[in-house]
């Protein structure tokens, strides 16, 4: 027995050493990190006074930009506050945040999803109101809608960024075929026909496999031109228009007309497939949103242009989906409410808007500060705010509170319209039926 024990000694010893090594290697590293950062911040205040705020977010793609550019700018002005950006994977964010909030371990600053997800957090008392935060007057009502109570009386997140929908196109292909970006829907179809006749490139690059592109980059992209943006969106909520009205059927019908221009086998083309096809130069036009700009600038080796959804013939006003996407709020249970409010106030500033807009081209600040955007593509998208009427996706506010929820239904219906498995008329009727099932103002 003792022999066996003796044999175990070196193993146990090694294991202990390993454990000890792990323990030791973690602690000093953290210390040096802090020391290094303190130095670079130029703060000469003792680190004892420093307050650390944790920021929850789903934008893990932006980690480097937050850590290297945005937060250092804040730390420089507020050496006594340290903000740490702690992102979670986008599709896990909501569930993880919920769990952390109810367990009392969530960060001090919360990145807010638009509309009901955040409204629920506010109603449950997890988000503190920011209505009276200095600087909030930089945001107009549309910008605040996504993070305000239904009656608009309380706002609980500072609007941070919106994304604008439109079309990207491959300038090289347009030059080769001698075509110009279309200004009306008729021209749009002519352009598509020209590309299709040439036969070398897919006229429109999109697939329906993931379903959301069909709704988000398809229907919600061109739809506002049909339902007149905010007018139609509000009319749906009030119940004065219904989803089977002609303008919605027409929007679905226009979407259905895309199917002959999509790449072969588009039914099984996924979102990454479409991204790759376009950036590899195999397609001419890519229905999209401005969030794609940063990635595409990196991947595409041809020049890109952008045009807003072309309005139907005879319509002078154009409408763009300028969708409120990201806000930032304060955990009601934070131990440092003052510091958190200081940070939130900073996010309403022109300085933050400028930094954010240029470091993350395609995510546009919603404050009314005059921001100089450098990226030409982002600039193009942003210019549509002046030329066209802005609106948001019609399924996001209130209309997705019941079963079936409109957003998920529109994914399915838009994908099916493109796949040709249901008629536009039928799709509109289905959406209306879904609303009537639970939404009182639509029950007539």
């Amino acid at each position: 027995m003792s022999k066996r024990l003796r044999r175990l000694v070196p193993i146990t010893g090694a294991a202990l050493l390993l454990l000890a090594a792990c323990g030791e290697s973690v602690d000093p590293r953290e210390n040096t990190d802090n020391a290094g950062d303190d130095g670079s911040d130029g703060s000469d205040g003792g680190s004892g006074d420093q307050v650390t705020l944790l920021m929850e977010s789903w934008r893990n793609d932006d980690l480097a930009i937050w850590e290297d550019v945005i937060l250092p700018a804040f730390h420089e002005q507020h050496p006594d506050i340290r903000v740490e950006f702690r992102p979670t994977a986008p599709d896990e964010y909501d569930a993880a945040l919920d769990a952390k909030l109810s367990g009392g371990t969530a960060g001090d600053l919360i990145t807010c999803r638009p509309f009901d997800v955040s409204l629920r957090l506010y109603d449950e008392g997890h988000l503190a109101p920011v209505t009276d935060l200095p600087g909030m007057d930089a945001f107009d009502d549309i910008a605040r809608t996504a993070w305000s109570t239904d009656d608009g009386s309380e706002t609980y997140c500072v609007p941070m960024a919106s994304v604008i929908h439109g079309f990207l196109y491959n300038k090289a292909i347009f030059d080769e075929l001698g075509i110009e970006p279309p200004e009306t829907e008729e021209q749009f179809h002519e352009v598509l026909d020209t590309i299709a006749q040439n036969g070398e490139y897919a006229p429109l690059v999109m697939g329906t496999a993931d379903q959301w592109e069909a709704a988000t980059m398809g229907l919600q992209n061109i739809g506002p031109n049909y339902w007149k943006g905010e007018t139609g969106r509000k009319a749906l909520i009030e119940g004065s228009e219904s989803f089977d009205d002609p303008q919605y059927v027409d929007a679905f019908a226009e979407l259905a007309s895309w199917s002959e221009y999509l790449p072969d086998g588009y039914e099984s083309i996924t979102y990454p497939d479409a991204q790759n096809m376009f950036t590899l130069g195999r397609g001419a036009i890519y229905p999209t949103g401005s969030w794609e700009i940063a990635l595409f600038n990196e991947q595409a080796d041809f020049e890109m242009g952008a045009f807003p959804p072309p309005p139907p013939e005879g319509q002078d006003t154009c409408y763009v989906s300028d969708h409120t996407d990201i806000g930032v709020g304060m955990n009601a249970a934070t131990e440092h409410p003052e510091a958190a409010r200081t940070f939130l106030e900073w996010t309403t500033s022109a300085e933050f808007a400028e930094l954010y807009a240029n470091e993350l081209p395609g995510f546009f600040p919603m404050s009314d500060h005059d921001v100089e955007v450098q990226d030409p593509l982002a600039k193009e998208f942003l210019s549509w705010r002046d030329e066209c009427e802005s609106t948001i996706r019609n399924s996001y506010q209130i209309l997705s509170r019941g079963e079936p929820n409109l957003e998920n239904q529109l994914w399915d219906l838009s994908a099916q319209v493109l796949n040709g498995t249901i008629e536009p008329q039928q799709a509109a009727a289905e959406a209306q039926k879904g609303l009537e099932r639970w939404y009182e103002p639509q029950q007539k």
Partner: protein
Amino acid sequence: MSRLRDSVPPDEVGTTTVATGADAVATPPAAPPRRRRFRTHLLVFIAPAAAIYTVFMVYPLLDSLRLSMFAPSDGGQVFVGFDNFVHLLTDDLLASAFWNAVWNNLVFFAVHFFVQNPIGLLLAALLAGPALKGRATYQALLFIPTTLSVVIVGFIWQLIISPIWGFVDTPLLGQSSTALVTLALMSVWQYIGIPMILFYAVLISIPDELTEAARVDGAGGWSTFWRVKFPLLLPTVGVVSVVTYVANMNAFDLIYTVKGALAGPDFASDIMGTFFFRTFFGFQLQEGSSTMGATVATMMFLLILAGVLLYFYGWQRRVESYQL
């Protein structure tokens, strides 16, 4: 086995056969009074497994059954009895989604049953055939997919049959008519090694005397296989089928990897796992419900239980096992 059980005296039926068996070996027959002493070391051996199984399997299962009888109310939960089940089976939206998922799941299983079993059997028969060169290599190659991650399998097949990057022009994964069967066949491709190896193990354990005797009796290769070998394989066919059934009814990963939680197009590839996922965790703007999710999970459990019972009483008790 049944003989062993019969030999136990009636008053001892309550004690486990394992205990009796162990006694018979460990204790000399000369000391009958010690026979009935409770063997504490048995508990010591059973305890770790029982504890882990209870904490990680039995308790979560029971708690999920409990949860299915509750509904959320003012931040807490109230007991509602079988209301969730009634709602699941009568609500027009939920019920149609549920039955669609059940049906798709059965189709998913049927493809496995009718494709995986025959091909697995064929491969096993070829491997067990006489004088096959490189048998071990074939075996390893055929078994490798089983060891791959589902994510890799899904990703590779998606590329292979992609109309843009692959060499199949038909969007197999994009059409309601083909998506589910395509996914099921991917899964068959991945797991074909399991039935193959199980069938193979039985085939090589069949003594040569039997096949030789059949040949002497004038049977050819074909009838030797069907009349002699196949009956010996039947119990394994049953085991493979029931294991496949349980795995298929719990399936989720491949479909989630390839088609996402919406299991499109138009829920054509939605099986109970993905339906459960959406119900429990919610999806995009749809809020999740842990209680309704638990109800769906309970229904899955009941369906699996029903299938397994059917196997035990309808198949395993009837099929004849031979001791070789």
